[in-house]
């Protein structure tokens, strides 16, 4: 298990600011393990640009190599739009890498932080669970986006 290094105080502060701004959705966020980030690579099957939360569903392998549907929760539409994401950002069939905070229960789902699209661009449909701009920068700088799917990093 690799340890993540917080890039700078600014990133830490930015994370808290984003939390303060957006983690106010219609439900508790206690089900997510905010001490970890995990990369899942797969193929988009559904992009639900819905309120009260957007959801991205992808087909990806689990720990046993079996292809299953993973689900990732994102921000409400208004917050996603402010981060440059709309209802056409993801299309079925496209390959994506999702960086997310997993469910505490271990089931195949989590809270999206950011998504790398096939062309290398970054989409940020996240809710307040992370500062996606800062976290994407950390992942890019450290080359972690080339990690195999299912790799998990600790945030402490």
């Amino acid at each position, binding site marked *: 298990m690799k340890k993540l290094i917080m890039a700078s105080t600014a990133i*830490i*502060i930015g994370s*808290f*600011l984003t*939390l*303060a701004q*957006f*983690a*106010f959705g*219609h*439900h*508790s*966020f*206690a*089900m997510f393990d*905010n001490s970890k980030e995990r990369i899942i690579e797969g193929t988009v099957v*559904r*992009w*639900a640009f*819905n*309120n*009260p*939360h957007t*959801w991205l*569903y992808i087909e990806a392998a689990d720990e046993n190599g079996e292809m*299953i*549907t993973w*689900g990732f*929760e994102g921000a*409400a*539409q*208004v917050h996603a*739009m*402010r981060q440059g994401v*709309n*209802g056409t950002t993801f*299309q*079925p069939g496209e390959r994506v890498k999702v960086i997310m905070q997993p*469910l505490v*229960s271990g*089931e*195949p*789902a989590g809270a999206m932080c950011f998504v790398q699209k096939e062309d290398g661009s970054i989409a940020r449909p996240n809710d307040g669970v992370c500062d996606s701009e800062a976290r994407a920068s950390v992942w890019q700088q450290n080359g972690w986006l080339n990690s195999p799917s299912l790799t998990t990093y600790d945030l402490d």
Partner: protein
Amino acid sequence: MKIKTTLIQGFLCAILGSSFQLQALAQGTAIEQAAIPGATRENPAVEYPPRDFATAEEHYNYLLEQASGGTQHTMATIPVWDGLWSAGYNSMPAIFLEEGSMAIAMRPGGEVREGVLTPAYEEHFRARRAEINENGSQLYDRLTNCEYPGMPRWLWEPYVKEFVNMPDQSWMLNDFMNETRRVYINAEHVNIDGKHSATGDSIGFWDNDKLIVWTKWINPADYLRGMPLTSNQIEIVETWQQIITVEGQRQLVTQVTFYDPIGLQSPQSAVYTHTASPDLEEFGARIRNWECTSSSNSFQDEDGRTFFRLPGDPEFRDPRGFTDFPDIPGQSLNPMGQ
């Protein structure tokens, strides 16, 4: 945790402070608008009632009398609060927590103020705060199951709002749960339903550019996730006014007094704000119907925690594919091709 909280508070203050610098300018209405008395350069100050009132009715009638029965607007003179709006600063958490702010309202930290809530409500609030302190968050929010925020929670929910003022009614629309408040101008309270509702029954009058609203018959709910419960006897007096910040930004400032003889030991006041959000209009945002009941897969599990139904669960709702009639053409929620 204390360090985190301090950071959050500091940066919220920095952000919010830059947005709430006030000056006296008029815009969007033919009536001259004034600065909020007592406002600081950081946030609008709470305007307490001019004297103690035992009830919301007494408070409302006093303001009505002071306004000589109210201003009779026409469509040509009524204040226009057009465009899309987002909730901003509010002081409500400071009523219930020592040094309370939105930065800690839903997060660990903050000491419960003694003597604000009645014993049963304070006991419940202390238990709620203990749960947050232990788990980092309240484990379950009633909105998870698509319940309406209702009043007074409506005043803050951070999504998209619109305001439509007419001489005989004002409409306050929140995209969250499609929840619309209707304020009946120069009217009396009416309840032929024989029950309460999430947003209650609102009447109001205009005092030049200020809209004064009295709301009653509200369902028991809460001020916010992480904040205390409200009782089914709460009544609320609000004064709404549009102001312009020194940056030229349109703000709606709402001075609110809560009268809850069951939940509160005495009436309490707070200030809420909304900020005009032309950025959302530039994105092409429009208020769409909130689809919580047909698309949300969150629920309260057996342990009282929030959880999700996932693909493969028989009760999972495909948020863009659900239909009761899969064999009939054109029944999908997915006409865009996904």
